[in-house]
């Protein structure tokens, strides 16, 4: 970047700032979390990924229905079963004025594979990205990959020149305690430019006037102010300190609805919440059953299933805002077997008691129940409610409720007996990732959230086929068959999809999607 470009950029920023202070559409929004880094490759935190997606773009992007649409690529085609050819958009400029071309795509792919990068796992099915000419790249995958575009969303493109000039050609590396320029500054092609960043205080973004797409949004400046305390965030909405919040506690919904100037936007999240059970140990942990593991018996798992009343959880814990689930996959995930989204077994405590008696536990048993208390919507309250439901059929639970940082250690080390967990199927928004992480037999590469070590080789055999079946109808059938096996085994007990709850000043259209990500380029502020 030459000095003159720098000066022009500076003038550009100054103009934006001046426009913003003149009272054009400034949009202030809040969340309980702050984005960790501005480097699109150095963390894999879902809020951070979502935030930087307003600044950086990939070859393709999701719209608010989570459908793939072209972004930095205009079209793509399969040239061999494992090679896809992307035609890149011409005339696209990075925020600093440099042009976008195939070199930037190849560079970003290489950067994703540097030691500090934490998003390389999201792109693990890619083998290589090659330049064909200035505006064409080939992406080679390890195996045929029907969901390549869903995966490509995670390959955010950085400017080669800018990154090298600022010595940020590698992702910030926590292991080597190295941090770089790209962590604090940003230069993407996206709809918004980063103007300033103060951690835990505010981030200021300005609309990119040279954006290649015709903007649907009408914002000139965006202010993001994280507010950790729920009560303060809610009162800031009411007092007008912020325009919108994307983390509204359910208990505040009635209060916010009663304010004439505000509206609450709510819908199901991709994330399904479910209960897992240790199905591998010969003796169950945290239990009074010695020498055996009741959860190895299908009848016991069915008994737990039938003892939990998901409608009651919806009514009395979730304040009506949950979508009881028939399987682990949200109906909004790509490839979701919607026909199987009904409960396998009805809520029936009597049937549950009979099953326990048949399994040899006429008086039930005692088991520890591991739950987080700051991870999911009303996680702790859900566990308390389920604890009393299970007690009614004779399963006494010792609640082990812990903060996420402790609970996740248990999950990683299989230190569980009966536990709550959830998965959103992100970042790909496809069923494969969830089935691979949650249901597949735990190995180094699969089953990372399968803390109960459920394992069925028949199910596992389906996974590589689901991953590589290009033909949609055949893939749908494979998914349905695999999920039917897992459901019949009661590998987990699905509870519900939890809500995404946002609130905003009336007259602002937010474009909420089930992945709970704020897509600023779809936000419209109508009138003040």
């Amino acid at each position: 970047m030459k000095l003159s470009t720098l000066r022009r950029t500076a003038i550009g920023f100054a103009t934006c700032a001046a426009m913003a202070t003149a009272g054009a559409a400034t949009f202030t929004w809040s969340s309980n979390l702050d984005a960790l880094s501005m480097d699109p490759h150095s963390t894999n935190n879902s809020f951070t990924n979502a935030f930087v997606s307003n600044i950086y773009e990939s070859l393709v992007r999701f719209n608010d229905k989570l459908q793939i649409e072209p972004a930095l690529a205009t079209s793509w085609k399969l040239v061999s079963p494992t090679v896809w050819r992307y035609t890149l958009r011409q005339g696209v400029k990075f925020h600093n004025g440099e042009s976008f071309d195939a070199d930037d795509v190849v560079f970003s792919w290489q950067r994703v594979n540097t030691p500090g990068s934490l998003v390389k796992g999201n792109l693990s099915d890619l083998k290589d990205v090659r330049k064909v000419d200035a505006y064409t790249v080939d992406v080679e995958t390890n195996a045929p990959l029907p969901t390549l575009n869903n995966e490509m969303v995670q390959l955010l493109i950085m400017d080669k020149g800018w990154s090298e000039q600022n010595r940020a050609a590698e992702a910030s590396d926590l292991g080597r305690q190295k941090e770089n320029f790209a962590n604090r500054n940003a230069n993407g092609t996206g709809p918004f430019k980063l103007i300033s960043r103060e951690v835990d205080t505010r981030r200021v973004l300005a609309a990119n006037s040279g954006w290649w797409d015709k903007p649907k949004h009408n914002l000139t400046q965006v202010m993001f102010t994280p507010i950790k305390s729920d009560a303060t965030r809610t009162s800031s909405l009411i007092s007008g300190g912020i325009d919108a919040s994307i983390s509204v506690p359910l208990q505040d919904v009635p209060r916010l609805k009663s304010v004439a100037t505000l509206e609450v936007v709510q819908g199901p999240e991709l994330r399904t919440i479910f209960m897992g059970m240790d199905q591998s140990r010969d003796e169950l942990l945290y239990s009074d059953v010695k020498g055996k593991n009741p959860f190895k018996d299908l009848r016991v798992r069915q008994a737990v299933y039938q003892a939990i009343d998901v409608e009651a959880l919806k009514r009395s814990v979730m304040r009506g805002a949950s979508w009881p689930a028939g399987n682990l996959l949200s109906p909004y995930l790509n490839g979701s077997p919607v026909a199987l989204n009904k409960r396998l077994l009805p809520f029936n405590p009597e049937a549950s008691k009979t099953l326990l008696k048949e399994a040899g536990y006429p008086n039930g048993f005692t088991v520890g129940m591991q739950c987080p208390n700051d991870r999911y919507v009303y996680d702790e309250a859900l566990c308390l409610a389920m604890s009393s439901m299970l007690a009614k059929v004779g399963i006494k639970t010792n609640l082990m409720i812990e903060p996420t940082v402790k609970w996740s250690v248990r999950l990683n080390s299989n230190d569980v007996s009966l536990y709550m967990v959830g998965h959103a199927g992100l970042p790909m928004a496809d069923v494969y990732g969830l089935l691979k992480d949650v249901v597949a037999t735990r190995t180094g590469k699969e089953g990372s959230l399968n803390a109960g070590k459920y394992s069925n080789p028949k199910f596992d055999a389906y996974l590589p086929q689901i991953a590589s079946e290009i033909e949609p109808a055949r893939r749908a059938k494979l998914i349905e068959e695999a999920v039917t096996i897992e459901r019949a085994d009661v590998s987990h007990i699905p509870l519900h999809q939890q809500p995404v709850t946002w609130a905003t000043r009336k007259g602002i259209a937010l474009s909420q999607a089930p992945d709970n990500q704020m897509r600023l380029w779809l936000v419209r502020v109508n009138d003040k």
Partner: protein
Amino acid sequence: MLRFLLGRLANGAIVMVLVSMLSFSLFNFIGDPVSNLVGENATVNEREAMRRSLGLDQPLPLQYLKFVGRAVQGEFGVSYRNIEPVSRVIASRLPATLELSLVAAVLALGVGIPMGVYAGLKPRSLLTRGLQVISLVGISVPSFVTGIILILIFSISLNWLPSFGRGDTVLLGVWNTGLLTVTGWKSLVMPAITLALFQLTLFMRLTRTQMMEVLRSEYIKFARARGLRERSINYRHALRNTLIPIITVAGLQLGSMIAFSIITETVFQWPGLGLLIIQAISFGDVPVIAAYLLLIALLFVLINMVVDLLYFAVDPRLRAQR
């Protein structure tokens, strides 16, 4: 005097070592930052690789020695949460907390001591009784309740003051101050009152009891007998002698206002050290927690030293003995 100072410094060093060991042994119980970094879709191998690269797979004593080795060189590593050098993260948060604590301390001492003096001099007046009742409320209401009540009144009902943040700040060299802008002061009012309220009532009650006790002592009676003016008795003789315990408590309270403004900072999203530490704890950001605890230990050691020196200034008897 020099021997005294050196002795204090040696004491302080021992305290620092103990605090660092104690805080490090606690990290076993904080939990694991890895899941926050790699995302929920990370594979078992990726999680293990992350743990190894952060050195979390090593035995705790080894991790401690490495930490001390780096800390001695002033190197505290990189924050897991912000991926920034810890020293820079803490330095950027320090001004916010110091400004808040100092304003709160001025408020607490500046209002609390005069109220206490008045209550001590006129224990039976109606105003004193009123103050006593108010102080009881101030000492018993937890600060997050005070904060939320203030927000309800001044942000929601009246819409006079912002409910979060620090307003606009001005960068003076390395110091990011909010004391030079109108929005900065507006943002400071409610957090400062919330943080000061408990201390204010504490100082009022402390001053009042001390004052009443000193006023009963013999040298005050002698002073009266000598026919000194009431003002000179009250302020030059009585008040000065009540100050020693007040200085001790004030020093410690200032330290705890800086160190433990966590609740106030969380309620008002005040971007200082308290907010930093609470978020570091819930994220498992070990480098930040370790550096913070050391910093706070250092702060208390220094404050105690200053308090000891102030005794010399206030109490001539101490100077005579040495």
